[in-house]
C-alpha cells in the first residue's frame, strides 16, 4: 500500500491551496497560468527529464483540480480559459475520475518473472506444478509468456522465493476489473463497471488516476453570497483535524459557510430507519439485509452482484437525510457535503438535494488559503447533537452497532461485516448473493445483518483523507466519546 501522504498527494494539495488562494483573491483566471512554473522552478532538480516536462504534467494536474477532465486537454487552450469555464460551471461534470495518460507509466502487463535468485534446482517445483507447462529449466527457470496464465503456482512453490509477480497497481487495486489497458498500454476506466471506490487513485504510484475537484465551484458560491451555503460534514471529518468538538463548525463558518450540519444527524435517521426495516424484513422471513450507507457498495451490488439487490436496505444515506434537513429549512440553500469519499461524488451527482461534494483535502486547502487554524477557534457546536452511534458510522462496525442499539429484541441479530471491498470482499459479496438466491445452502452461522464498507477501516480509511487512519481512529474515538457525554446531558 502507498503511504497516504506521499509525493503525489502533496502535489495535489499544494495545487489546491494555490488555486484557492488565487480564487479568493479574485485572480484565478490570470494567475492559474503561473502555477506549474512556480511549482517546478528552474533551480530545482526536475522529477522527470526536465522542468518543462514536469510543468506540462503539472498543467494537466491543475486541470483536474479545476474540475475538468484531463482527457479533454487541448495543447492550444491556455489554463486561463479552463479556469474561466470552471468559474462559469453550473454543476460538476461527469465522470468523477480522470486519467492523466501522460503520467501513466503504461506499466507492463501484470506477469510473473523468474529473478536470478533461481538456483536451477533439481526438484523443479515450479515446472512440476505449472498446469500449463509454461516453464522450462535450462540452468535457470524460464516462463513462456505465451503459455503462462498468471496462476502464480510457480511463485507459491519456489523454495528460493526466486519468482516474483510484477503487478499493475491500479488494475490490482480495482475490485471490479473496470480498469484495462488500451492499445497504447495506458489505462482506461470503464465507467459502466466502475463503482468509484477510489482504490486506483490511492494505489497508482504515478498519481495518474485523479478525482475531479469541486473546490472552485464551492468557493465561487461562498464568494457570491447569492444563496446560503450549508456545509454538511461527514462523521469521518471530525477525525481528520486535531481539534476539540465544535471547533470544526466554527472553522467552517469562518471559511464562509452560512450554516454547518453534522452528517451524523442523518446517520441517526439512517440507523433508526434501518433498524425498523431490519425488524420488518426478519419478521417476514428474509434471509438477510445489508446496510446501504456506502454508495460504492450499493453501486457494486447494482452492477456486479444483482442477486444481492433485494437484500440492500432501502434506507437512503446519511448524506441524503442531512441534505434533506438543510433543504427543508431553506429550499434555496446550496448544500455542500464534505467527506473522505469519491463514491459520494457519484451519489451526489444523482441526488437533487446535494449540490456539491468536497473532499477533506479540498476543505483543508480552503482552510490553509484562508489562514484558518481549526484548533484556534472558539467552539460553536451545532443546534442538534447527534448520538454517539451516529458519529460512529465512520468506522467499520459502527453502522451495525448503531442498528443494534436501536433493535427492540437484540437476540434476532447476527451481524457480519465486510471490511473493505477488495477483490476478496467482492467474492464474499458474491457468496452472499448465491446464498440469498438459494444457489448455495445457508450456513447456520450466516449473518442476517451485513454491514459493508468499501474502504478498509470504514470512511476514515477513505481515498480522500489527509490523516493516517491509525491516528484518525484515535481522534474518532474521542469524538464519539464526547457524543456520549453530550447524550447524558
Amino acid at each position, binding site marked *: 500500500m502507498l503511504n497516504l501522504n506521499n509525493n503525489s498527494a502533496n502535489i495535489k494539495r499544494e495545487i489546491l491551496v494555490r488555486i484557492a488562494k488565487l480564487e479568493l483573491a479574485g485572480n484565478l483566471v490570470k494567475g492559474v497560468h503561473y502555477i506549474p512554473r512556480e511549482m517546478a522552478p528552474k533551480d530545482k532538480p526536475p522529477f522527470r527529464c526536465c522542468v518543462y516536462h514536469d510543468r506540462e504534467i503539472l498543467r494537466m494536474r491543475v486541470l483536474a483540480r479545476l474540475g475538468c477532465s484531463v482527457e479533454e486537454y487541448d495543447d492550444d487552450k491556455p489554463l486561463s480559459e479552463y479556469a474561466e469555464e470552471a468559474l462559469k460551471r453550473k454543476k460538476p461534470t461527469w465522470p468523477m475520475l480522470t486519467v492523466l495518460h501522460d503520467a501513466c507509466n503504461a506499466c507492463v502487463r501484470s506477469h510473473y518473472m523468474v529473478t536470478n535468485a533461481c538456483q536451477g534446482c533439481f526438484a523443479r517445483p515450479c515446472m512440476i506444478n505449472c498446469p500449463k507447462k509454461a516453464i522450462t529449466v535450462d540452468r535457470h527457470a524460464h516462463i513462456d509468456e505465451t503459455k503462462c496464465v498468471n496462476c502464480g503456482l510457480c511463485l507459491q512453490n519456489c523454495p528460493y522465493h526466486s519468482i516474483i509477480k510484477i503487478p499493475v497497481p491500479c488494475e490490482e487495486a480495482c475490485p471490479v476489473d473496470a480498469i484495462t489497458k488500451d492499445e497504447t498500454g495506458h489505462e482506461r476506466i470503464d465507467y459502466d463497471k466502475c463503482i468509484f471506490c477510489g482504490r486506483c487513485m490511492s494505489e497508482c504510484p504515478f498519481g495518474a488516476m485523479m478525482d475531479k475537484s469541486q473546490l472552485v465551484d464551492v468557493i465561487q458560491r461562498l464568494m457570491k453570497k447569492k444563496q446560503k451555503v450549508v456545509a454538511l460534514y461527514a462523521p469521518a471529518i471530525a477525525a*481528520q483535524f486535531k481539534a476539540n468538538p465544535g471547533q470544526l463548525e466554527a472553522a467552517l463558518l469562518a471559511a464562509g459557510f452560512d450554516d454547518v450540519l453534522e452528517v451524523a444527524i442523518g446517520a441517526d435517521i439512517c440507523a433508526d430507519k434501518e433498524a425498523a426495516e431490519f425488524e420488518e424484513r426478519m419478521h417476514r422471513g428474509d434471509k438477510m439485509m445489508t446496510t446501504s450507507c456506502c454508495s460504492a457498495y450499493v453501486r457494486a451490488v447494482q452492477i456486479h452482484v444483482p442477486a444481492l439487490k433485494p437484500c440492500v436496505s432501502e434506507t437512503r444515506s446519511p448524506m441524503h437525510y442531512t441534505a434533506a434537513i438543510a433543504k427543508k429549512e431553506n429550499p434555496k440553500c446550496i448544500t455542500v457535503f464534505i467527506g473522505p469519499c469519491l463514491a459520494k461524488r457519484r451519489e451526489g451527482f444523482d441526488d437533487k438535494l446535494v449540490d456539491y461534494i468536497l473532499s477533506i483535502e479540498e476543505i483543508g486547502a480552503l482552510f490553509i488559503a484562508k489562514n484558518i487554524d481549526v484548533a484556534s477557534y472558539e467552539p460553536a457546536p451545532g443546534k442538534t447533537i447527534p448520538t454517539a452511534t451516529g458519529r460512529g458510522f465512520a468506522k467499520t462496525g459502527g453502522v451495525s452497532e448503531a442498528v443494534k442499539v436501536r433493535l427492540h429484541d437484540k437476540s434476532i441479530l447476527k451481524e457480519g461485516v465486510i471490511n473493505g471491498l477488495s477483490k476478496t470482499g467482492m467474492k464474499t459479496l458474491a457468496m452472499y448473493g448465491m446464498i440469498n438466491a438459494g444457489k448455495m445452502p445457508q450456513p447456520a452461522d450466516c449473518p442476517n445483518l451485513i454491514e459493508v464498507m468499501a474502504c478498509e477501516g470504514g470512511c476514515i480509511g477513505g481515498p480522500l483523507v489527509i490523516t493516517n487512519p491509525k491516528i484518525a481512529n484515535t481522534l474518532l474515538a474521542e469524538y464519539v466519546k464526547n457524543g456520549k457525554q453530550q447524550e447524558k446531558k
Partner: protein
Amino acid sequence: MKKIKVTICTGTACFVMGASDLMLLKEKLPDELKNKVDVAGCTCMNECKGDKNGMPPYVKIGDEVMHHANVPDIISRLTELVEGK
C-alpha cells in the same frame, strides 16, 4: 544526557500536508534513540505564516525548525544530534 525534544505541529496547515504521519514517530524510532528523545504534539507554531519558512509540515527538534518534515528525515537528524554533530 538531556533528552532531545521533538515537537510536532498539529495545526491545520501541517495536518493537511501530512503531519498525522509524523505523530507515529514515537513508535518508529529506532531502539538506540528511544530513551534519548521526547516526542510531543503542539498547536500551530505559526511557522506557516509568511512564505519564507518553506513548506509544512513543521517540526521542532530541540530549537531547530525542520520544514517539509517526514519521519526518515527527523530520524536522521536525531541520529546526527545524538552522535554530537
